[in-house]
């Protein structure tokens, strides 16, 4: 504007004159812009000197419309339009146009115009000013270009680019960022508070961000950000503050780079690295690496463990300390050479282990090269070759001795080429054959082979060479002294690395002696084998380790297995599964201890049935005592086993039965006094089951009062084989009394010895109740006796009282009649007659009573008084025990029988025994002993003597003892002895009583024995009877 106005003024003046030589003209010409004035139609009348200087167009040429040639044709139209515009000039509306410089280059100019008005205010001309803005525009252009480029870069960055304010408010986020996060800019404003981060990373990210905002420190963080599709990816975010001139933070630029793949790759790499390291450290070999210059930078754990060094000690060149001093120099020089030339390492050296032992190691290493072939690393390993090394050394040493050995060994050694020709024959062999080496070589040795064996030997030898297989053959060779001896020839091929046979080596052993022994053995074995296979049992052998190498035919037949199936351990398959464990255990024990063993197990028969067998094995030992074999048999014990089981079961039943019935069994071998008791018998006798049973032990338990009875029983049992049954008491140590019933059966065992088998039953309970019952019964019987006696008496009294009453009444009447005055003689006579009649009636009563006591005739029979007496004792035992009477039987042997009524005689004996017991009922100061004895007296009478220690017989009344109704007893009837005597007398015998020397009395009954004549007669009768019976039955048949 200033320029325009300034220019306008001179233009006013200029309009009046052509030249500008005035001061104003100088100014216009010096103006650093192009100036022209023109009519509204563009007809210029003035251009300043600068125009001319710029465009190179003379002012004259520029006037009119000439100036327009300076304007770029593209810009001219708009310039003309502007120029010709009638509108008032508006500030700021600059127009740019390119103006051609004199050299043809266009430069941009800013165009402005200003009106020049006449005095009347009417615009007559326009003044135009072109200002060169080319440089300015160029600067602006370049700035713009650069900004656009930056923007493109910013937007196009394959990273999240964000600009925030100094307070962290989001200002801009690039396209990629919005796309990645799947958010609009507005949304992102909020999101940048951390929502886009992985929850695990959010706290640390936000904390770092806040820290950066507060302090202005650069912001560097890694974190996972959620992609639009929800996938989290690792981002590395960097933020830098942009500061203004005063150093205050203006903006923050944040750039988040996706390095997820990298991260994963990193992780994978580090995992695989770890794995590799682990492998390297765990492989059973040493491993190491060095830098190109040989500086060791890694040694695996195995290496360190071997050398006993830490990695710090060994790395670099420290490992050298583990190398053997003799080897270290050579190794290092070799190593330097390899480093220099890059050739792989392959050498050996000794390395010291952590415990100070040196071992040989093979050192191997290879260089690792990069693409350009430069070595970047050496990798190496050390392999322990100590054993090989030693072996090699040993081989070297041994080879030297070998030939010596071969020639001196006490055996025949040879080698042959693959065509069969002998190349080498050792000294021993040559000496045996009596050949020189030259003679024996090739096929010369074959001349010494027995003609019968030669073909076979040659053919086997040829076959061996054809197949390349080791071979052996037995053949007779003629010795130097002409004797043929069996040799065992063995040969094996030597092969090269390719497997081809290069040579044959052989040995020959003189087996003549063995062969002979073998032949003999073979013959024996054959017969043994036959025996073993034919014997009707199973047999087998095993090796020392238990491996079965033989089972006989019997075994195979039983099992139905083939020998192949049974050999080894196959035999176990037929064992019953339940028995395998026990058998194997037992067998292993035998094997381990070398002791023979018996065990039992079930084996399956070919038909599937299991049977019990007794396994019995014995070791076979050689001369040194070493077990070479086990020989065993299996014996079928199934039947026995079953019987055993049956027995066990029945024994169990028996024991149970015995327990329940409280019956023990026992046996007694009389000659040796061996006794066997069952458990229950021990229990009854309350003896320790471990005690040996003897009659003595048994007696020790018998109640003292019963000892005589048992003693007598035992004595009789010893004498003859018989059966007996006794009931007696036992007195236990605790004073308890037991009642037992003993039943025994006598037998003769196989060697004729007397043996009793018996049962003893504890009948205490029964006996105790029997005793109670017996007592009650006897009391009842007594009461009944008293009652019946009373009834009898009353009956007798009634029968007698009636006539007696009549007699007295009649007699009284008679007396009164006779005493009357005058006497009533007739009445008296009648009453006297009646008195006689009543007297007769009373007499008849007595006759009737006597008839009641009339004796019966005795039907005679043979009576063994011993047996009869024993029966009575048995009958009375309970009663006697109850009365605490001790009975001492003394029975005569060979007592002849008597003739009589057995029952009546027993009644007498019973009466005597009861009397004896009654006579002792008040005895307190001495044992109530009763001796009952049988004997044959001097008058051929059979006697039974009962001797008590009771009150005895009063001499004054002795003669009345046997009277009826005489009694000394309170409850007695006094008919016992009277009846007894009448019974004995009816047997033609006698019954009498005597006083003892000591206390008590002795009653004796004596009846005639049966004479031989009588016996004969009875025998004849019996014979006749039986003959008749036979005859009758015969008659009945016919």
């Amino acid at each position, binding site marked *: 504007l200033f320029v325009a106005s300034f220019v306008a003024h001179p233009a006013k003046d200029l309009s009046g004159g052509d030249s500008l030589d005035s001061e104003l003209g100088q100014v216009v010409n010096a103006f650093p812009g192009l100036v022209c004035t023109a009519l509204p139609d563009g007809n210029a009348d003035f251009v300043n000197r600068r125009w001319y200087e710029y465009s190179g167009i003379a002012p004259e040429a520029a006037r009119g419309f000439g100036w327009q040639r300076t304007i770029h044709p593209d810009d001219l139209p708009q310039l003309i339009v502007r120029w010709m515009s009638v509108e008032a000039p508006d500030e700021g509306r600059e127009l740019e146009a390119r103006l051609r410089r004199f050299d043809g280059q266009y430069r941009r100019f800013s165009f402005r115009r200003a009106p020049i008005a006449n005095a009347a205010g009417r615009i007559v001309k326009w003044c135009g000013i072109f200002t060169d803005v080319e440089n300015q525009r160029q600067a602006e252009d370049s700035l713009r270009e650069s900004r656009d480029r930056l923007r493109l870069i910013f937007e196009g960055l394959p990273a999240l680019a964000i600009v925030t304010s100094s307070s962290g408010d989001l200002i801009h986020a690039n396209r990629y960022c919005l796309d990645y996060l799947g958010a609009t800019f507005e949304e992102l404003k909020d999101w940048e508070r951390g929502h886009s981060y992985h929850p695990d990373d959010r706290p640390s990210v936000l904390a770092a961000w806040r820290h950066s905002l507060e302090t202005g420190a650069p912001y560097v963080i890694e974190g996972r950000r959620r992609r639009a599709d929800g996938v989290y990816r690792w981002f590395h975010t960097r933020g830098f503050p942009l500061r203004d001139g005063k150093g205050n933070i203006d903006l923050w630029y944040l750039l988040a780079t996706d390095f997820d793949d990298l991260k994963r790759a990193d992780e994978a790499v580090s995992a695989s690295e770890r794995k590799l390291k682990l492998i390297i450290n765990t492989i059973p070999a040493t491993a190491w690496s060095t830098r190109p210059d040989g500086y060791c930078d890694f040694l695996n754990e195995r290496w360190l463990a071997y050398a006993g060094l830490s990695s710090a000690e060994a790395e670099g060149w420290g490992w050298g300390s583990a190398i053997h001093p003799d080897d270290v120099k050579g190794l290092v020089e070799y190593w330097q050479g390899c480093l220099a030339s890059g050739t792989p390492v392959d050498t050996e050296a000794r390395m010291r282990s952590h415990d100070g032992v040196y071992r040989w190691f093979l050192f191997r290493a290879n260089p690792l090269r990069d693409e350009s072939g430069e070595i970047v690393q050496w990798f190496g390993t050390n392999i322990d070759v100590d054993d090989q090394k030693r072996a090699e050394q040993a081989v070297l040493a041994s080879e030297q001795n070998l030939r010596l050995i071969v020639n001196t060994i006490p055996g025949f050694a040879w080698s042959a080429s693959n065509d069969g020709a002998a190349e080498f024959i050792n000294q021993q062999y040559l000496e045996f054959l009596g050949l020189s080496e030259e003679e024996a070589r090739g096929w010369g040795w074959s001349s010494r082979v027995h003609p019968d064996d030669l073909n076979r030997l040659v053919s086997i030898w040829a076959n061996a060479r054809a197949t390349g297989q080791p071979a052996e053959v037995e053949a007779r060779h003629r010795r130097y002294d002409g004797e043929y001896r069996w040799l065992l020839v063995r040969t094996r091929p030597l092969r090269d690395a390719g497997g081809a046979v290069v040579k044959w080596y052989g040995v020959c052993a003189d087996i003549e002696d063995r062969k002979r022994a073998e032949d003999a053995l073979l013959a024996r074995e054959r017969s043994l084998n036959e025996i073993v296979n034919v014997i009707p049992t199973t047999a087998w052998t095993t090796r020392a380790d238990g491996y079965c190498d033989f089972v006989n035919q019997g075994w195979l037949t039983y099992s139905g297995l083939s020998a192949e199936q049974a050999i080894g351990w196959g035999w176990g398959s037929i064992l019953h599964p339940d028995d395998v464990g026990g058998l194997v255990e037992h067998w292993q024990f035998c094997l381990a201890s070398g002791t023979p063993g018996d065990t039992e197990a079930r084996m399956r028969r070919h038909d599937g049935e299991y049977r019990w067998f007794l396994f019995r094995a014995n070791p076979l030992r050689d001369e040194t005592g070493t077990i070479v074999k086990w020989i065993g048999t299996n014996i079928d014990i199934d039947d026995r086993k079953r019987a055993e089981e049956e027995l066990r079961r029945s024994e169990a039943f028996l024991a149970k039965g015995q327990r329940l019935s409280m019956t023990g069994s026992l046996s007694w071998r009389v000659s040796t006094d061996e006794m066997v008791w069952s458990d229950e018998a021990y229990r009854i006798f309350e003896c320790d089951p471990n005690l040996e049973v003897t009659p003595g032990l048994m007696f020790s338990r018998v109640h003292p009062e019963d000892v005589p009875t048992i003693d007598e029983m035992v004595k009789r049992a010893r004498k003859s084989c018989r059966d007996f049954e006794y009931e007696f008491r036992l007195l236990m140590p605790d004073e308890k009394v037991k009642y037992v019933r003993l039943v025994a059966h006598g037998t003769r065992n196989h060697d004729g010895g007397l043996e009793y088998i018996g049962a003893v039953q504890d009948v205490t309970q029964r006996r105790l109740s029997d005793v109670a019952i017996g007592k009650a019964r006897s009391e009842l019987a007594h009461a009944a006796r008293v009652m019946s006696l009373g009834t009898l008496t*009353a009956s007798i*009294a*009634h029968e007698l*009282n*009636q*006539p*007696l*009453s*009549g*007699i*007295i*009444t*009649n007699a*009284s*009447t008679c007396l*009164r*009649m006779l005493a*009357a005055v005058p006497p009533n003689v007739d*009445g008296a006579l009648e*009453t006297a007659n*009646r008195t006689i*009649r*009543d007297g007769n*009636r009373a007499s008849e009563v007595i006759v009737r009573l006597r008839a009641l006591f009339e004796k019966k005739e005795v039907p005679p029979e043979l009576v063994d008084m011993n047996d009869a007496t024993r029966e009575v004792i048995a009958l009375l035992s309970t009663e006697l025990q109850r009365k605490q009477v001790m009975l001492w039987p003394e029975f005569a042997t060979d007592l002849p029988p008597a003739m009589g009524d057995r029952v009546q005689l027993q009644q007498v004996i019973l009466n005597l025994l009861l009397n004896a017991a009654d006579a002792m009922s008040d005895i307190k100061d001495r044992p109530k002993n009763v001796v009952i004895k049988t004997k044959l007296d001097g008058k051929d009478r059979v006697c039974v003597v009962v001797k008590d220690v009771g009150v005895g017989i009063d001499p004054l009344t002795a003669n009345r003892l046997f009277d009826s109704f005489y009694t000394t007893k309170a409850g007695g009837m006094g008919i016992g002895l009277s009846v007894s005597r009448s019974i004995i007398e009816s047997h033609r015998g006698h019954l009498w009583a005597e006083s003892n020397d000591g206390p008590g009395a002795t009653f004796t009954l004596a009846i005639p024995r049966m004479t031989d004549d009588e016996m004969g007669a009875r025998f004849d009768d019996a014979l006749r009877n039986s003959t008749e019976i036979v005859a009758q039955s015969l008659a009945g048949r016919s």
Partner: protein
Amino acid sequence: MATRALVSIVDDDESVRESLPDLIKEFGFAVQVFPSAEEFLASEYVDLTDCLILDVAMPGMPGLELQQVLERQGRDVPIVFITAHGNAASRTRAMSQGAAGYLLKPFSAADLLDALHSALKPK
């Protein structure tokens, strides 16, 4: 003695029935004899009898039962029991039922006379 007192005898035993009336007559009493209690009860002498000599044990109605029957009929006849089976229980029972006497066979003439006198004694 204006009128002789009547003594009736009931006993199943024939020898008693034969011998005893003579003795009673000798004592001076009138006598009637019956072999059983039933015959006595059926006779005309039941109400005329002043004293009854009664056997305890008889076939048919025993003596003690006859005693009860008479008592029930309101006949206050003194009774002297005679028996060959004497026992304490029987005697006690008879006496408690009001018997005038209880004699065991064989009894003496004096004992019988005492018993009759005691029975016929005015009350």
